[in-house]
């Protein structure tokens, strides 16, 4: 369903030292350094999988998501998702995906949630019957009944996140990208979001790619993880195999948490 092969992407970053003098100097002449955000990333994902995409801050997780959701054009490499190349067939391709950026809203800030939903229906051209049934299902399972007529700016973060997730599923996408969907949420909202993700995966067969720093999310949701550090792919495989591999490295008899294992892995690959 998703095949990514050999994706590389680098950014030019202007470098200058601190101080007023160099700030003035950089107005006229700038030195750039090439920073490889992604180098030679390849993986493939089957329909119906939930994949946890993890790595420390600045590892290139968001860049990968942006490339495979068609926002960024990579420097090299190919990517086929449901027969489309995301950055070439953008309009046709994005009809099939839903994207949640945990830190950015896709709802219109000053109007009730339902108005945003209605506009999204028009943007995605969702047939009325399909829209109504999706909306009904989403309001029920995400418990949106009471908040759907409230302006977005008055919602709490947890309420807003549930609306965000609903908003990205209104057009029944077959792939859902979740970029830190549980960031800043309280325990109750986190569990609710996780349960919902599992449910749409099982009932509707939606393929899910999830980036997060919360290892409990990964443990609760994903069978498979892809680890990325400093732009390179380091591990791709089963989460339990990973646990078995590192369990001996811990001296104490208690089983290490997945968090500890990941820290261990970061150390081994020297990517912290």
């Amino acid at each position, binding site marked *: 369903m998703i095949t990514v092969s050999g994706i590389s992407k680098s950014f030019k970053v202007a470098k200058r030292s601190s101080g007023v003098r160099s700030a003035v100097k950089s107005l006229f002449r700038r030195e750039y350094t090439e920073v490889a955000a992604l180098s030679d990333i390849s993986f493939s994902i089957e329909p119906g999988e939930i994949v946890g995409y993890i790595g420390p801050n600045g590892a290139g997780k968001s860049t990968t998501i*942006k490339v495979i959701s068609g926002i*960024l*054009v990579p420097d090299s490499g190919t990517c086929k998702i449901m027969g489309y190349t995301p*950055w070439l067939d953008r309009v046709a391709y994005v009809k099939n*995906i839903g994207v949640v*950026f945990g830190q*950015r809203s896709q709802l*219109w800030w*000053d109007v009730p949630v339902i108005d945003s939903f209605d506009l999204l229906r*028009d943007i995605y051209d969702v047939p009325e019957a399909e829209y109504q049934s999706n909306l009904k299902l989403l309001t029920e399972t995400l418990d949106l009944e009471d908040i759907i007529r409230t302006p977005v700016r008055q919602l709490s973060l947890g309420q807003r996140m549930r609306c965000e997730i609903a908003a990205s599923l209104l057009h029944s996408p077959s792939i859902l990208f979740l970029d830190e969907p549980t960031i800043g949420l309280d325990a109750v909202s986190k569990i609710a979001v996780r349960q919902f993700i599992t449910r749409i995966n099982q009932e509707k067969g939606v393929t899910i790619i999830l980036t997060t720093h919360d290892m409990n999310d990964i443990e609760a949701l994903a069978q498979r993880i892809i680890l990325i550090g400093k732009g390179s792919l380091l591990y791709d495989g089963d989460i339990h195999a990973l646990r078995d591999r590192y369990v001996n490295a811990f001296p104490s008899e208690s089983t290490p948490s997945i968090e500890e294992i990941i820290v261990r892995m970061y150390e081994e690959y020297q990517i912290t």
Partner: protein
Amino acid sequence: MRLFGKYLLILFKSQMQYRTSFWLLSFGQFFIPFSVFAGLYFMFERFGQIKGWDFYEVALTFGVIHMAFSISECFARGFDMFSSLVVNGEFDRLLVRPRSTILQVLGSKFEFTRVGRLLQSALVLAWAISQVQVEWTVMKALTLLFMIASGVFIFAGIFILMAAMCFWTIQGLEIANIFTDGGREMAQYPLNIYQKWVSRFFTYIIPFGCVNYLPLLFILGKSEGNPLIHMLTPLAGCAFLIPCLFIWKIGVRHYRSTGS
């Protein structure tokens, strides 16, 4: 088009959440060009005419260009404010939606408060039309509409062009104001009062002269040669939009997004 209407509706609802600020801003927008126009009036009061143009003829030019400017500012405000869309990463969101980026950026912002400015320029235009010494015909009325429409296209084109620069610099460029505000200030007078190179620049590079000066000659009966050519010059304004859209397309492919 229907979708654009929906975008407008939701933005209007948002705007209505802030009613006081809406009225104050509209009020302000009404009086900014008003003071400029008052300056124009007093100047003609003193000097009578400029290079053979009398007050009402210049007022007609003024009305046309300000009308075009306020309409384009209403609609193309999304492009004018595009740098903020890039800086805060909102443009990412637009790219994962299955619609053209142009439509979505247009729909991202609509400056309802420019209604004040629109009203003001409409008043000036109406006054100029009623006072200027012209035998109005259907053709001339059409030409006037043409002038406004293609003026809108030129301003929109400049907005798009400058927005496209954000793909390379991230930061918005004040340089756009030289062409939008500057162009507006220049083009509110008939172009032949300026130096040759100025009027050439605003005829061939940014074709304000084509929406304003040349067809105006036709309306006022000052044109020489084929009137049809003068009538159709506003089309050059529409043509200006094409390279702008093309540069926009290239820019989108250079988009680099921002953090997280």
